[in-house]
């Protein structure tokens, strides 16, 4: 891990989002679960928040096992859980079932639903289901750069008001918006 971490440190200073992992011994940490359909950057966001490395791939079904790491956001330390891909709250495959069971059993303090900003139309229904379940959701519109490139314009304020949850736009591969996301998590966590 040393070489990787050294590299990561190097990248951090150039604005890359991966930060070295912070380790400390906390008993019952607040929990953040990352959910979303395959291929929207769940694992990359996990890497961003925790600084640990999970394989990131451009195809569905890479994360079968649940990865866990720690992240320090503001003054608080969180346990971050990366889940297998999930299209809907009504699971079809075993990986989706794993993701849902995790949400039901571990009762995370914050659920980050990460979506591909270009495909909001297909991905927002899961957000609605998570909100409906009364889970503490933060919506992350990832890969916002690709959406912008094709000329899409999304009004985050409108979305926040309609959904009544925090909405953040990010590019997890470059680290754009990650600080804003951390700020919103911090704010949100204080209220819980």
């Amino acid at each position, binding site marked *: 891990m040393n*070489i*990787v971490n050294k*590299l990561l440190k190097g*990248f951090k200073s150039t604005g*890359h989002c991966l930060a070295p992992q912070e380790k400390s011994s906390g008993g019952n940490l607040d929990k953040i679960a990352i959910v979303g*359909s*395959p*291929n929207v950057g769940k694992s990359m966001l996990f890497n961003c928040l925790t600084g640990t*490395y999970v*394989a*990131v*791939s*451009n*195809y*569905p*079904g*890479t994360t*079968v*096992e649940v990865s866990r790491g720690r992240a320090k956001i503001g003054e608080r330390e969180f346990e971050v859980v990366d889940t*297998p*891909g999930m*299209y*809907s*709250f*009504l*699971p*079809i*495959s*075993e*990986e989706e*079932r794993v993701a849902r*069971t995790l*949400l*039901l*059993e571990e*009762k995370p303090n914050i659920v980050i639903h990460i979506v591909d900003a270009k495909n*909001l*139309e297909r991905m*927002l*229904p899961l957000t*609605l*289901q998570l909100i*409906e*379940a*009364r*889970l503490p959701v933060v919506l992350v519109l990832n890969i916002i750069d*690709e959406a912008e490139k*094709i*000329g*899409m*314009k*999304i*009004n*985050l304020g*409108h*979305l926040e008001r*309609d*959904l009544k949850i925090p909405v953040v736009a990010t590019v997890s*591969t470059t680290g754009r918006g990650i600080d804003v996301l951390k700020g919103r998590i911090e704010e949100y966590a204080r209220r819980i």
Partner: protein
Amino acid sequence: MPEEFEGGGDILEISLEKIESLLEADYGISGRSIGLLLLQEDEEITALVKSREPENYKLIAEIVDHTKEHYHEPLSYIISLRRQEETNNILDRALEYQPAIGLSLREKLSRIMISSLTGIPILLVILYYGIYKFVGKFGAGVLVDFIEKNIFEKNINPWVNQVFTSIIPWHLLRELFVGEYGMITLGVRYAVALIFPIVTTFFIAFAIIEDTGYLPRLALLIDRVFKKIGLTGRAVIPMVLGLGCSTMATMVTRTLPTKRERIIATILLALAIPCSAQLGVILSLLAGTSIGLWIWAGVVGLVFLFIGFLSSKVLPGDSPSFYMEIPPLRLPKLFNVFIKTYSRVKWYFAEIFPMFILASIMIWIGQLTGLFTIFIRVLEYPVRWIGLPDKAAVAFLFGFFRRDYGAGGLYDIKEAGLFSTNQLVVACVTLTLFLPCIAQFLMNVKERGWKTGVAISVFILFFSFFVGFLLNSIFSILGVSL
């Protein structure tokens, strides 16, 4: 939708409210969610509610049935339709500009990859340059030669031999480290000189292919063939991952939706999918004979299709339908490719290195106790049946430990000039099909249970030699000499 409004109320909403009021236990999520899942007949949630609401469950089930009868379409369809409507309403307000998406270059390229007419040539080009040229020729050829001949044979081996001769006077103990099967002369050499360059080049090629988003498109392309053998294109991902490491891929079979698909995929992974290091060594072994390479690919491919077809007939279950998310084509990021390759190679190495060392120790103990010779003697019989020299038994014994270890054994025998081309092809085919390594066997047992795991291995043991025997017989009957 007039059917939703009857008697002034929305049946779905009314049922939901009724169910909600009947739920007494705490489920961690809202009663409305539980209610919706019950209406959509989610098995897990239904079972959960049944166990937690012993008194009200019957009533709830009645409401679900009643609601179902009320609609022509399945409730899950109605519910997702409404959700989509809500989504669209929200997006109408939040989306300030939604571009009309025409066919971009990416999209065109993507279609070319999926269409069978243009897709298959593209696949062949990728296999030829990405796997054969880069992994087989460059990794398993150039790099292995360099590390093996220049670094090990010229520098490390003589030096290590000398050092151990001077510090360990007992021949027997010295054999453990620097003998024919010694920890350093065999274990470390296989790991560093053979497996390392092959696996690294393979993982580089694989990471690039993976990050472009080509694999899901490949899945669509191959979907048709796979459907015939009872798998969906979704299974391509475990199969392609299996080329990296079949053990890891067996774990990924969990993403397949039906049990039947998972079992078929597990069998195929154990039998007909060589892992990266094995593939690399085999490509380099057969690099001198292109006809041999084609025969090897043809036989293994046929076995794959044949067994897949058979097991889809034998294992009961419906042929599943295919659906998959297609990510956009992207240019791979160098940093991501690098770090992915690094972490995979590291993981792979950590996995094989202790195994190779352990194998050397076990062989050493086997030699001391005479067990090694017995095993070799036993294995010599099937090896003779398939027309190979007795020495090849060692490679198959290695194959019990790991596929790549076994392939390494073949490499040494070929280097020693003991194989004719015919024998080489037969040996490569048999070893490709031969038993999965110990790690994969354990994974099979873990994922599929003892009975299935053991049954798969026993089947493969006999089947691989049977195919080798068949191939050898065909060669001699037809008088083929490659």
